[in-house]
């Protein structure tokens, strides 16, 4: 009786905080866009906005996969290295060799084309994810440690494999995946948005998605509810590997080059996107929509700061502050909801 009336009465205020908490990243993004558009009218130019989206599409793709991982209370620090190794493999497949050849054209066309390259890139990414997932589920090593190891291993493999240098110069049908446009929309943006929609549907509306949240929320309860906890944990590392592999391919297409040093430090931007988007590092709570907003927020911030001639060193500082603010705000809202 008192329980019920208490819930009802406190409902109003708690509901308000709940709504604010849920939409905080989006509100913040819109406010930021408003400020930048006043400071620099060029900001709202569609070309600029698509440019922002293209810039975030690479880390954004990986952030989609990272959302799955973080929902299970895991983490993957190795995504930048996976991106590099799979991008390098994609390049080698496209070229048909490891030769650092800059030549283009029909006479040199001995490679396997963009689809084979993409498939190889994704396969390598997922293989990396599988190895790490194995370490986490079977060997019971914490994800932080396994993927910290992976960060080093996959980077080292890339450097060894490529002898430290880039593989550059692809066919136009390969480059299209990074540089092409469909109407006014850059291809990487389309890939990112389609992937985001698929991930959203998977997490929100499928049995698998439900299981991911359950495993992240309470692994012991999930096991006692008959879920195959290890298999689900393995799957999220395969998913993040898939996206890191795909991103490696798209990045190499965009740059027309696969660099052995590509993606260094990407894990920070990726994890920041997910966390700013409201996904809990403790697992069980978060969404793809939040991650898309989080990734966009970082992109808008960087772009706006560049347009306003703010030093790139300062950008880093600002992003760091925003990560902390976002999580602090989330905490604040949670205590309000409970009061």
């Amino acid at each position, binding site marked *: *009786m*008192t*329980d*019920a*009336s*208490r*819930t*009802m*009465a*406190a409902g*109003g*205020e708690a509901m308000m905080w709940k709504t604010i908490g849920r939409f905080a990243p989006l509100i913040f993004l819109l406010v930021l866009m408003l400020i930048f558009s006043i400071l620099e009218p060029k900001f709202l130019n569609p070309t600029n906005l698509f440019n922002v989206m293209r810039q975030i599409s690479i880390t954004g793709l990986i952030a989609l996969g990272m959302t799955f991982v973080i929902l299970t209370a895991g983490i993957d620090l190795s995504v930048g290295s996976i991106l590099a190794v799979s991008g390098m493999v994609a390049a080698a497949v496209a070229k048909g060799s490891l030769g650092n050849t800059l030549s283009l054209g029909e006479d040199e066309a001995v490679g396997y084309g963009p689809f084979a390259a993409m498939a190889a890139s994704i396969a390598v990414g997922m293989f990396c994810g599988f190895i790490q997932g194995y370490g986490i589920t079977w060997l019971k090593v914490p994800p932080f440690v396994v993927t910290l190891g992976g960060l080093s291993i996959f980077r080292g493999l890339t450097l060894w494999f490529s002898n430290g240098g880039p593989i550059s110069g692809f066919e136009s049908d390969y480059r299209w995946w990074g540089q092409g446009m469909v109407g006014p929309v850059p291809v990487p943006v389309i890939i990112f948005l389609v992937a985001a929609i698929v991930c959203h549907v998977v997490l929100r*509306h*499928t*049995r*698998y998605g*439900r*299981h991911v*949240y*359950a495993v992240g*929320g*309470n692994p*012991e*309860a*999930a*096991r*006692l*509810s*008959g*879920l*195959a906890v290890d298999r689900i944990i393995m799957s999220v590392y395969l998913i993040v590997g898939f996206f890191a592999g795909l991103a490696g391919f798209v990045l190499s297409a965009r740059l027309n080059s696969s660099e052995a040093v590509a993606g260094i430090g990407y894990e920070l931007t990726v994890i920041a996107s997910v966390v700013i988007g409201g996904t*809990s590092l403790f697992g*069980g*709570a978060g969404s793809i929509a939040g991650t898309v907003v989080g990734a966009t927020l970082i992109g808008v911030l960087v772009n706006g700061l560049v347009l306003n001639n703010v030093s790139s060193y300062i950008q880093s500082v600002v992003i760091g502050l925003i990560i902390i603010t976002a999580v602090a705000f989330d905490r604040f809202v949670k205590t309000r909801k409970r*009061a």
Partner: protein
Amino acid sequence: MSSANPELLLQIDHVSKRFPGVVALDDVSFDVRRGEVLGLLGENGAGKSTILKIISGAQLPDQGTIYWDGKPVSITSPQTAQSLGIVTIYQEFNLVPTLSVAENIFIGREPLHFGRFVDWKKMRADARAITQRIGLSIDPDAPVSELSVAEQQMVEIARALSIEARLIIMDEPTSALSGAEVDRLVGIVRTLRSQGVSVMFVTHRLEEAMTLCDRVTILRDGKLAANLNRDELAIPTFIEKMVGRAASNLYSRPTTRRQAGAVRLSIRGLKSVVTAEKQRGVVLKGIDLDIRAGEILGIAGLVGAGRTELARAIFGADMKTADRFQIDGEDVTIRSPRDAMRYGIGLVPEDRKLQALFLQLAIRRNFSVASLDRFMRLGVFVDEAKEAAELQRFRTMMNVRMTGPDQLISNLSGGNQQKIVLSRWLSLDPKILIVDEPTRGIDIAAKAEVHEILDTLANRGIAVVVISSELPEVMAVADRIVTMREGRLTGEVAPEEATQEKLMSLMALDDATVKG
């Protein structure tokens, strides 16, 4: 009220506390005298935790006065409470598991050499002296993580004594203790009382309030329901004041006994597998048990007897070996909860929050997590309409008080949460349902409802296994009771022949004295 009565240590004088839209405490007055044990009773939501928070400095009252030693005080923080001599021991202990007993007792107040370095020798000696004061012999250097729950509680009490607490508040101190441990706690509380320390004892267990308390204060719906003196203490009175109506019998049997059907589960020689990781803990040493369709089998035993371990072994949650493990006469191998579910076994685990609930998730998701296969569209998508309809069916059947399927499960009371966990399993149509501590932390009205549900299930032909630390509960619910002790079955009793004394002797005495 404010007139200085030297007997009174703490007076709560017309205290009220409002939260937005709700009155949590409404004009409550009671007092704690020097060297007495005061029981604080009330159903969930009666205002017990609010009054505890006010006394321990976590919240301030909106109205009313608190007197300490006859003087009005304002307890603005837990530090203020501590400096007055009020220490609260919550259900979740406030200990650092990696530190030693002595370190935990003196945390923040370590005896020092030269004002800088910890004087370990003195700390150990002081810790030993304090633990001896409550008749406890534990190594002051043992890490707290290696202690049993009961011993950890003693460490909390020792810490309270080390800061010269004059009032120790214990929130549900016996809920995690076995019978023998409860007895020891009772002894310690009596020792404290004889040393002039007052104890305020919050509990759900009326028998304990009866045996332990000098006086009892009962809250109901945020109001004072009764202040009872020693000669007024009686369990029927407690119940009447707590629920606001005369409860004829706390655990009345819902219906008559059933005839059990065929043997559903037949176990011979069930043993735990001891692995390197799981060396500590209770070991099953050969269990022979038959469980029949349409009966409620009660398993009674003290904490550590292996009741929960038996449930987990049957359900595949822990590793086991068995000479025979048959369901409906066929040999089956169960290595995981998934396997168990395939054979129609369900488990409602002991610790709702840690083992059953997904607290960040909605009721809907908590309900369907194990049975999503039943609500699928196109093989992969969850049919949310069908899911909600099924949840609604159970909500009506079990009288779950909730606002809707998308409400967070953490906003429900313990009783309603338990009903959702039961629904989770019932939506799978189990053949065998094991319920470990079905009514732990649930208020009296909801307990009766849960008992009725279990009874209905058995009537439908489900083999129900009920594990409970509360003997009256086992006796009321079960069609057949088996007792356990140290990983073995020690006896079987028909409920009409069962008395608490008889069961207790099977659960607690040596094999030599009881032939099981």
